[in-house]
């Protein structure tokens, strides 16, 4: 299979966050296998997303004065915010965005938030590090992340008083999916296996033997003195896990309505490769079904997809923290702040009258420095890491017009449309403005630009 321009764009917008015209052009006529391989190779050169972390404070938190505690909380807020900003900047600037797109999928899948920069840094390292690696390794690593253990209350999961939250979500959300044959009894028995999985203040996983339940448990019909890793192994041995993840992938990367045939194909590749993510996703992105016309240009870009892809496509940089927070909050998706443990609802849920107007007006804010009229609600949490300081008057953006014009030298407005709009697009040539930037604004202001 040789990909045409729209198909290359389709692949790079779905498997990544899109790319500029030059990059797209370099792949036209190549096979999806080869393009993916090159993209994955580029990902190997990616550097970690890293923020400056605080020195470990030896005094126990409880013994600190209120002023010291406040200072620590304030510093933590700054770290959480900094990590959010650094990650978006990386998504927008990395040579290949595949790793971060898949990591974004995992952030949604292993939804988590924390008020602690050290914990979040470690969590992000894990989901980025394993994004294109092995799912079993990632599942085990994420399950030991302080951010996740805290988010799902496993720090409180003790032999004397088990807390089932983690055990329930690991089955319902991370592996098997809801109502997939396990019972309440399986959950409470599995919770006993996870007793004692906790963390210390410095952000290290701690197995606290003293509060671990060492007695025999019965989970999924098997009896033994299982610990947490045993439960995770049992979940991985169940092919339903491969199927559940594949189902989510197809809905996320291909079409929200799903595709049973493709899901099965991807699940088989996933399971038989012992959960190798690259193998499974290669099966997905190289399948003819993925390139079916009905799958192209019909996905509503998530806010993060929109914010990042517009930068990657158009030689644009948005690096100002307030601008980036503003863009996330106005559209209802803030990294490290999923609405709940189930992650972000996708698709039409992003669109209401306000977010749609905002999206259609966004090119004016980006390319014309239009004054900002709408603002997110003031935060009601004193400790909100994502509060915007002061009132933002306009977005701070940096457009490399030379590079952009270079991409479209001697090209018509139709070429620009073919690049910016996915799907069969027909507009009379006379409708286009004459000025190049106006043409870009014209096209990116169309509802069709919200689709990929």
């Amino acid at each position: 299979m040789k990909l045409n321009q729209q198909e290359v764009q389709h692949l790079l917008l779905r498997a990544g966050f899109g790319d500029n015209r030059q990059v797209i052009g370099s792949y036209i006529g190549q096979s999806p296998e080869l393009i993916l391989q090159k993209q994955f190779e580029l990902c190997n050169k990616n550097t970690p997303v890293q923020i400056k972390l605080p020195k470990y404070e030896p005094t126990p938190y409880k013994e600190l004065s209120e002023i010291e505690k406040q200072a620590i909380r304030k510093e933590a807020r700054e770290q959480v915010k900094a990590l959010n900003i650094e990650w978006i900047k990386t998504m927008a600037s990395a040579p290949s965005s595949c790793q971060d797109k898949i990591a974004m999928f995992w952030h949604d899948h292993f939804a988590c938030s924390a008020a602690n920069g050290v914990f979040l840094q470690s969590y992000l390292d894990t989901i980025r590090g394993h994004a294109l690696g092995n799912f079993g390794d990632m599942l085990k690593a994420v399950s030991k992340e302080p951010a996740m253990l805290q988010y799902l209350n496993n720090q409180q999961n003790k032999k004397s008083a088990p807390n089932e939250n983690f055990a329930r979500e690991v089955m319902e959300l991370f592996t098997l999916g809801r109502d997939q044959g396990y019972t309440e009894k399986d959950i409470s028995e599995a919770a006993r296996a996870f007793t004692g999985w906790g963390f210390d203040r410095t952000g290290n996983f701690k197995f606290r033997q003293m509060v671990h339940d060492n007695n025999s448990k019965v989970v999924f019909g098997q009896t033994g003195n299982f610990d947490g890793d045993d439960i995770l192994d049992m979940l991985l041995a169940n092919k339903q896990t491969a199927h559940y993840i594949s189902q989510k992938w197809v809905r996320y990367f291909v079409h929200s309505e799903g595709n049973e045939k493709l899901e099965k194909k991807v699940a088989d590749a996933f399971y038989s490769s012992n959960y190798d993510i690259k193998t499974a996703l290669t099966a997905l992105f190289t399948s003819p079904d993925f390139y079916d016309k009905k799958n192209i240009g019909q996905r509503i870009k998530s806010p993060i997809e929109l914010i990042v892809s517009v930068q990657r496509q158009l030689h644009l940089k948005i690096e100002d923290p307030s601008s980036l927070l503003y863009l996330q909050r106005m559209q209802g998706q803030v990294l490290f702040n999923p609405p709940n443990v189930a992650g972000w609802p996708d698709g039409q849920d992003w669109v209401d009258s306000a977010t749609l107007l905002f999206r259609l007006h966004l090119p004016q804010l980006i390319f014309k420095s239009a004054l900002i009229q709408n603002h997110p609600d003031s935060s009601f949490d004193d400790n909100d890491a994502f509060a915007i300081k002061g009132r933002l008057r306009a977005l701070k953006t940096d457009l490399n017009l030379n590079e952009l014009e270079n991409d479209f030298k001697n090209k018509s407005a139709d070429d620009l449309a073919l690049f910016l709009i996915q799907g069969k697009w027909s507009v009379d040539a006379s409708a286009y403005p004459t000025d190049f930037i106006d043409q870009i604004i014209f096209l990116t202001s169309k509802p069709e630009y919200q689709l990929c």
Partner: protein
Amino acid sequence: MLKSTHSRRQFLKQSSCITAGTLLLPSFLQAGLAPMTQDTRLVIVQLSGGNDGLNTIIPYQNTDLLRLRPNLLSSDRRLLKINDELAFNAGFSGFRDLYNQGDVCILNSVGYPNPNRSHFRSMDIWQSASPSDEYLSTGWIGRYLDQECGSEANIGAIEMSDVLSLALKGQKEKGTPLTNVGQFYQATKQVELDPTPHVHSPTADFLYKTAANTQNSAQYLYEKSKIYRSKHNYPNHKFGSDMKEISEMISSGVDAPIYYASLSGFDTHNNQLGRQERLLQMYSETMRIFADDLKSSDRWKNTLVLTFSEFGRRVTQNGSQGTDHGKANNLFLMGGGLKKQGLYNPLPNINQLDQGDLKHEIDFKQVYSTVLNDWLKTDARAIIKGDFKSLNFI
């Protein structure tokens, strides 16, 4: 009996939401075509951040209260005493006027089982009306719209915000967020929209339809809400202008049954005394004017205002003269059509606490169910999970 309930519901289905198709008709035509509109209005006011209800509606004679929170209560002289049991926060004089006029019903000890102390999670629980161990991606008002509105997008609910809250998100229907009708109208004018998509797909159709409905709603609101201009002097802050805008929409006869506004800043972990009083004063002064305004346009009797916060605060004050996140809280109902005025149930018992927190006696979902069944005249069972017997306030 059953039949008449059914036809009433059918009737409301047509009337509680304006569909985009009818919006652009000249009003004289609409009057002939559209059924008579439902009269009742629900206004929801969200106090974001967790208002300390115990320092709002105060059992001031309780000696333990002073012992547990020595720095939170304003001086005895400034407290607004109602009787030998109850006093209002010093910032609540407008509220006291409404209370004395029989426009207020206070529900004490409202909450839900297994309460959550996170702002975001608890707010989601209140807005989605989910049990605390379940996650819903729709809100209770959104599900009301789903149930009562046809397939066309509508403006059944308006939120005074630039961002739509979970409460107003339904599966099919969504509320309309705006901060100012004029600005909303201008914003739709700024965007040039073609009537039909240039790419053919169901999602492109969906986006174009949403955009067209937004434009129609904006135009309808812009034209309709000009009918009544408030002469009342609302305080000069965002909450004041939000409530003024709502009052003008209601008094102009805008055909949306639900309005949503919020006031934030109640997360008073430190120096609570002055901070909370200022916020309560903003709320209470605005609400008194809002009530006066609707009374002068004869809409108050058909308006119900529900004020809530995502949780109350701990009974014992913390080390920085503030309070940390708590559990049960009070909830206020206002309007000219209250069946029960004053205190609906006794003030919370601070001598019987649940690990330092007020215990809940009324599930907020029971309050919602009552409002849905008895005020909005819909069937709450499909909107709120669980079968809640109506309370007796409307």
